[in-house]
Each structure stands twice: as structure tokens, then as C-alpha cells.
């Protein structure tokens, strides 16, 4: 059963140096506050997993928390590049960043395999691309019935999945609606999970399009209103597009980034 705790306590208990973490969210419901709490608690040597690393991963990378990134698309959505990510890959600042890159289809299926307790997933993917040449976690597999060759990718099983959701009840059942992305799979694939929510309520009244993660599949729930900012939480907040644009300037140079971290996160 999930424990309802503070975000700081959840991160302190669940996230350790050297862990593999998946902070998931597909534009919607990105667990930004949780990512910044990890920076605040100065976790190091993390392997960060995400289909669409965006500014919260740029922040984690720039702050020196990450050793490796497993991903399929890294950018500032609607704006451009992630400068801290680029600086780490191109110049090794503040630390070299190992990358393991896949396509979205591959990453989604790696989570599905992880959530399903399977060691690998099969997909039609990667054929003819240069990705298998640079990513060792892409192999071929032969259909035992038709002889067809397909791609195989290994399961993702992070130590901790971290997501943001609209609501949880006091028992720790989590309700998510709108674009739900790959969050359920990330939580089910991981050994532990932290779910930040807009609010903890007495009862989860049904909402069209909502899915529920039962309490016994979640480790920690933390109430963090606005915890997805600058992304949005459908029914609670709109996307702060200005922030995404402002991030481009903040993150472009190392010193503006560092003063931002000191000022906005490490306080």
C-alpha cells in the first residue's frame, strides 16, 4: 500500500546515488517538482530514463546528478534544444553523460516489457537505421512461426519511477486523466515509485478517460500542487509556455544556469 508522505521524505527514502530513475510524463503531467527535489538532495550518478527528456532532465543533467541518459527524444518541446544536455554530450560538462538512445516505439515497448515482467519486447522497428550500430540494447529476433526478423529490446526496470498525477485518495490510489502517456508502464516496471499529485482527496470520483493506479502498486504519494509546472495538469493548470521559452535563455550558458539552480532550487 502506498504511503502518503512529503516529497522530500519520498525522495529521501526512495532515491539513492547510483539509482536508475524514470521521471515520466509526455508533455502533460511532468514531475518537475520531484526532479528539483532530487537536485536539492544532491543525488549523484543517476541513470535517467525517459522517452522525452525535457527541461527537468536538462536541470538534473546541468546540476551534475546524471551519469547516463536512456531516452528517445531530448529537447525543449516547442522551443528547441536542451543546452545543458548538449553541453554534457558535446563537452562533458559538468560531467560526461553516457547516452543510450532508442526510438519512442522502442522505449515504450521497453517499459511495457518491464511492466509485464518480461525480459524483452519485440517490435517492428529500427530496421535500416543507424541506431542499432550505436545502441547495444537493440537486437534482432526471429519469429518462431514465420521466420520473420524483428527487433528486440530489453525490458526497462528502473529502481524508481516518478510521475505526477491529478489526484490520490488517502489510501494512496492514484487517478490520472487526459494524455496518460507511458506513466502506468513506468510505475509498474519499476521496483519503487513516487507519485506527486495535485491533491489528496477523500474519494476518487470517476472522471471520463481516467485511469487508476491502485495503492498497492505505488510506493509513495506526495501532495505537491503545481508539481508539474511548467507542464500542465489537465483539470488543474495550463502549460506555462513562457517558462519553456525562458528556459532557453537560462540554460544556454553555464553561469546563468548555475545561478538559476542556486537561486531557484538549492534554497
Amino acid at each position, binding site marked *: 500500500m502506498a504511503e502518503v508522505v512529503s516529497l522530500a521524505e519520498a525522495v529521501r527514502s526512495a532515491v539513492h546515488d547510483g539509482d536508475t530513475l524514470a521521471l515520466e510524463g509526455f*508533455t502533460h503531467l511532468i514531475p518537475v517538482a520531484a526532479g528539483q527535489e532530487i537536485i536539492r538532495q544532491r543525488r549523484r550518478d543517476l541513470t535517467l530514463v525517459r522517452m522525452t527528456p525535457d527541461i527537468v532532465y536538462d536541470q538534473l543533467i546541468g546540476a551534475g546528478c546524471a551519469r547516463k541518459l536512456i531516452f528517445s527524444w531530448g529537447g525543449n*518541446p*516547442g522551443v528547441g534544444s536542451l543546452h545543458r544536455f548538449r553541453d554534457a554530450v558535446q563537452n562533458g560538462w559538468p560531467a560526461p553523460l553516457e547516452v543510450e538512445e532508442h*526510438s519512442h516505439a522502442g522505449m515504450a515497448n521497453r517499459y511495457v516489457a518491464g511492466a509485464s515482467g518480461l525480459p524483452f519486447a519485440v517490435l517492428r522497428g529500427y530496421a535500416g*537505421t543507424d541506431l542499432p550500430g550505436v545502441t547495444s540494447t537493440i537486437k534482432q529476433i526471429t519469429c518462431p512461426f514465420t521466420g520473420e526478423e524483428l527487433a528486440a529490446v530489453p525490458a526497462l526496470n528502473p529502481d524508481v519511477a516518478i510521475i505526477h498525477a491529478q489526484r490520490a485518495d488517502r489510501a494512496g490510489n492514484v487517478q490520472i486523466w487526459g494524455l496518460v502517456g507511458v506513466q502506468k508502464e513506468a510505475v509498474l516496471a519499476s521496483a519503487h515509485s513516487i507519485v506527486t499529485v495535485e491533491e489528496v482527496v477523500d474519494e476518487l470520483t470517476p472522471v471520463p478517460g481516467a485511469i487508476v493506479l491502485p495503492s498497492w502498486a505505488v510506493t509513495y504519494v506526495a501532495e505537491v500542487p503545481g508539481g508539474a509546472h511548467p507542464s500542465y495538469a489537465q483539470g488543474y493548470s495550463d502549460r506555462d509556455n513562457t517558462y519553456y521559452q525562458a528556459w532557453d535563455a537560462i540554460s544556454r550558458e553555464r553561469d546563468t544556469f548555475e545561478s538559476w539552480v542556486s537561486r531557484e532550487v538549492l534554497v
Partner: protein
Amino acid sequence: MTETDLTYTTDEMMSVAAARALYDGASCFVGIGLPSTAANLARRTHAANLTLIYEAGALGAKPDRLPLSIGDGILGETADAVVSVPEVFNYWLQPGRIDVGFLGAAQLDRFANINTTVIGEYASPKVRLPGAGGAPEIAASCREVFVVVRQSRRTFVEQVDFVTSVGYGRDGTDRARLGLPGAGPTLVVTDLGIMRPDRETNELVLTGVHPGVDVERVREATGWDLRVAPDLATTPAPTATELTTLRELQAATGTDTGE
């Protein structure tokens, strides 16, 4: 009613030309940025029954402005169905249900291969780009692929530095050999003109130029010795309706979007 200013930018011409290529009733897997602009313009002009599919999980999205990101709330709110990201890729894209995949590119080569991974060497890139996203499987599985991208020698290269998504492969013959389900890129729309693959060799050939653009200008913006179709067409200029609709869409959005 104010009169539409029929002066248009090259970007407007590009979006209009790309939109025209989409046919009514098609299902279209839409990348954010230029493809999304074109697809939404098509849906508001000649292709009202275009089904827009966004990888964040929106099937049949009907946004009344341009989405600012691939997971913009308006996509889910207006969709016929919202599904998980694994479902988009596994149940909808992979089986070849989608008519058109609409992609952008950072580099595009002679055989319509797309690079969105790195400029330079992979291990020590000059520029680290965002990466593959949904593109490799969109390029493989959609019945056909349209690419929309601004044309320059930096972008239109002889050989992409990295094949993120397969057009026709390094020598133009890979697609059949690999057994990829879709037909591949059948159309490239730029701010200068239109290219299509040669039926025999799959090399991209200039088949149309936009009004006021001459062939030499396109060749200068192309990093290989660009072939020109004998029956080179000139794209009809944007109509008042097309321009009005495009500008209304962009005004409703408040800001232009780039991936």
C-alpha cells in the same frame, strides 16, 4: 470583412503546399512544428475529414489552434479517442493503419533518409540533436511519408551523418530489401519547391518550384547535384482562403512552434 494580404512568406508557401498534399479522409501521423501546421491547415481547408494522430495518444484530434507541443492538452480534449503512448505505437502505427506520416528533418539526403540524431560523428558530435522520437517507425510503417523542411545546403546533404529514419537507404535500394511495410517518403515540401523520389532509383528529384523561385536557387540550396523533372511544375500561389486560414490558426496559437 478585411481583404486578405496576398503577399506571403516562403514559410507560408511551404505550409500551404504541404497541406495541399494531404487528401480528405486520410489518417495522418503528425509531428509537431511544420507538419502539424500543415496538417491542421489541411483539415481546415480541403480535408475536413483528415484524422490527425499525435504520438502523445490523441487519435482524431481536432484542435482549433496549433498545438504548442506534442502533448498539448487541446489534442486529448478534442480527440475521438485518447490512448496510452505504447498503444499509439503498437496498436495504431505499427500495423500499418496510418495513411500518411508527416515528418520534419534536421538533415535529409538524396535518398530521403532523415537525420535528427547528430551532426558530425556520433561519439563526438558537432551538434547533438534531439534524437529519433517517433520518426523511425513512422517512416517505416505509414503507408507513405511526407517530409516538410526548410531547404538549405546544411540541411539537404549528399549523405546524412546518421540515418535516424529510413527513406530509401544509403543507396536508394534498402527499403524493399528490409521489407519495410510502408512506401516511404513520396513527397518532400520545402520553402523553395517540391521533390519526389524517382520511380526507378528513389533519388529525390525536383518536381516543382514555388512561385518566384528558379531552379538554380533550389540547386544552390541542395548539397547534391539535384536532378530536375522534365515537366517541372510551378506551385500555384496560396489562395486567399488558404492564407486566411493559416494566419487565423497561427493567430489563435499566439506563437509559432518549432520542434
